């Protein structure tokens, strides 16, 4: 059973979605600001929900699948809010908050249980390792959504079928910039997270588990996103092809976050 603060955050995410969706239909300055405020409120409530969960379980909030997914949603919200404030662009707010609401609802339905704490999974380094990696996945998720919006907008522009939403979503240039920004955040977080993970593991066991599928796929993720950043600046790739690469890269992240985490890895398993 989720903490009341978790429910509160879900309600606030939904309210924020309603505001963002409304401004897609009919722009309204104060409604847009209200959407941002509600999102900020949802993130704050979500933060305290995670904190409360840590206090209750006497461990990190991402100790199990539920906590990990909840942290993912929180970091996705934080990263989006940062990008929205940086670019002063609310055009994709409806899409991101819809994803957050769906994620939070899915969380309650499909991952309500809590796993048993593992004695080794503790300490500040471990906390940083997991938080940074989750943040990286959240930033990649954001870039994925932005790239999808880019592809749809590009297709509409080419087909000349311009509906109301076409005029409301951000311009292609900005979408590309925001997606690239998300990937930079994700790559930086992942690099730090992986490095900290290696240090933590070395302190713990004196070696590195190179053969662990999670390690292999994480290094693969670093590689494909680095390739995206290079390609997105190259002739013949920038634009919709780069957006497609970014979107496809996220499938690798999804594979890592679900199949690898749940079934393939030994010590990155959440339950």
């Amino acid at each position: 059973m989720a903490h009341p603060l978790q429910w509160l955050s879900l309600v606030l995410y939904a309210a924020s979605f309603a505001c963002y969706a409304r401004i897609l239909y009919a722009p309204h300055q104060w409604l847009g600001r209200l959407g941002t405020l509600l999102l900020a409120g949802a993130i704050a409530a979500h933060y305290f929900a995670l904190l409360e969960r840590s206090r209750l379980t006497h461990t990190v909030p991402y100790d199990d699948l539920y906590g990990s997914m909840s942290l993912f949603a929180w970091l996705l919200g934080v990263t989006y809010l940062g990008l929205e404030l940086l670019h002063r662009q609310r055009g994709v707010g409806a899409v991101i908050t819809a994803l957050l609401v769906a994620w939070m609802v899915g969380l309650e339905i499909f991952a309500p249980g809590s796993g048993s704490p593992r004695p080794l999974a503790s300490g500040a380094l471990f906390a940083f390792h997991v938080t940074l990696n989750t943040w990286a996945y959240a930033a990649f998720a954001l870039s994925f959504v932005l790239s999808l919006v880019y592809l749809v907008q590009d297709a509409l522009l080419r087909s000349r079928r311009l509906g109301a939403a076409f005029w409301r979503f951000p311009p292609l240039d900005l979408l590309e910039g925001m997606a690239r920004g998300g990937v930079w955040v994700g790559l930086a977080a992942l690099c730090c997270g992986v490095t900290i993970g290696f240090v933590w593991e070395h302190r713990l066991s004196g070696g590195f588990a190179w053969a662990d599928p999670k390690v292999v796929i994480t290094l693969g993720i670093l590689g494909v996103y680095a390739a995206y950043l290079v390609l997105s600046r190259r002739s013949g790739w920038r634009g919709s092809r780069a957006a497609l690469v970014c979107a496809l890269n996220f499938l690798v992240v999804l594979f890592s976050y679900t199949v690898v985490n749940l079934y393939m890895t030994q010590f990155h398993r959440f339950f």
Partner: protein
Amino acid sequence: MPTVTNSKIQVALIGCSHHTAPVELRERVSFTQQQALNAAAELRRRGILEEAVVLSTCNRSELYGVTVSTGGVVTEAMEGFLTDFHRIPRTELDGKLYRRMGQDAVRHLYRVTAGLDSMMLGEAEILGQVKSAYGQALDHGATGPVLNRVFQGALEVGKRVRAETEVGTRPMSVAFAGVKLAERVFGNLKGHRALIVGAGGVAEQVVEHLRNRGIGNLHVVNRSFERGAELAGRMNAEAIDWGSLERVLSMPDIIVTSVSGTEAVLTRTMLERAIDERKGRPVFVVDLGVPRNVAPEAAALYNLYLYNIDDLGQIVEQNKKAREAEIPRAEAIVSEHLAKFESWRAALEAGSIVDDLRKHFHTQREQLLREHLACGNDLSLEERERMARFSEDLINRVLDQPAERMRTGRGMRGRLGAVEALRHIFGLDEPRDEGQE
């Protein structure tokens, strides 16, 4: 400043617009900025209006005012003033002028400011024109509490309609549609470059829109260098000779072509080479030429967005329909603000009606006292004074409760209805003799 708080407030309007008068007549009844101010001052000086604003644009000339007279009289006087001011025989304006009073006048102004009465639905310029006309009248003391309220409300309506509906958002001309589409690719045009191929009329419109949207760098290339240089000079752009067209093609992010000729000016090969030189950065091409200036097969090039005049025409048509579909939402905003104004007017009227009633009762009381005292000579002075005091107290007591209810009662609409009913019941609407007061 004249006050209107002690009488029934009426907003009056007379005017003509593209709906009612041809341009030949509209230009004869238009006002320059100075004339508008003089006319507003004169309307007040002659006592026709207590507050006045003259709105004059290329599509309409309208006189707005506040009066305490009845509708027909004041609009008649305003019409007389308009014909005198412009020295136009009254018969020439027969059937060309519209007259509105009260709510209808306010609603008309709100609709005008929202762009709902414009020749091009939702056009943006009218909001600035209303703002300017009101601002000047305000600066010269021609407005008062009522017109200030009316015009501030109108400006709010104009802003809300443009912000909350699609009435004014989507481009309605081919030239503007091209520029707006370019913004969908590049966002802010400030740091971007545009190349105009040809110096025709439509190209000039595009240049103007690009300049208004803050394009960073603008070049014009034309077969006749002189003509291109002339357009470039007017638009603060740089002219390039025709022979350099292919060489400079990799430079712009936006290319607009409007050249007469039977063969394509820009071929697929030329554009492919330009994109390569640009390292794949996108190019937005607007082809306004008929026959087309850009080879149609260039549309398949990666990161090249090509729109010809038919594509843009279709978008304009879609946008027109989208704007029309938004009219009910815009009208709802107009009605919402009209209700707000009526509430405010009701509050103002509620104060004045009690004063009017008090005056009315006192007049009746004095008349009654005079009649009774004239035939009751046997009353002592003390009794007469007591009778006068009693009648005065009676009036005050009778009016205390309605005054309180008018001031604090709920529902402005209901209060306004009550005010109108009281005016009607006690005959306060009817013109009174000066002597009676």
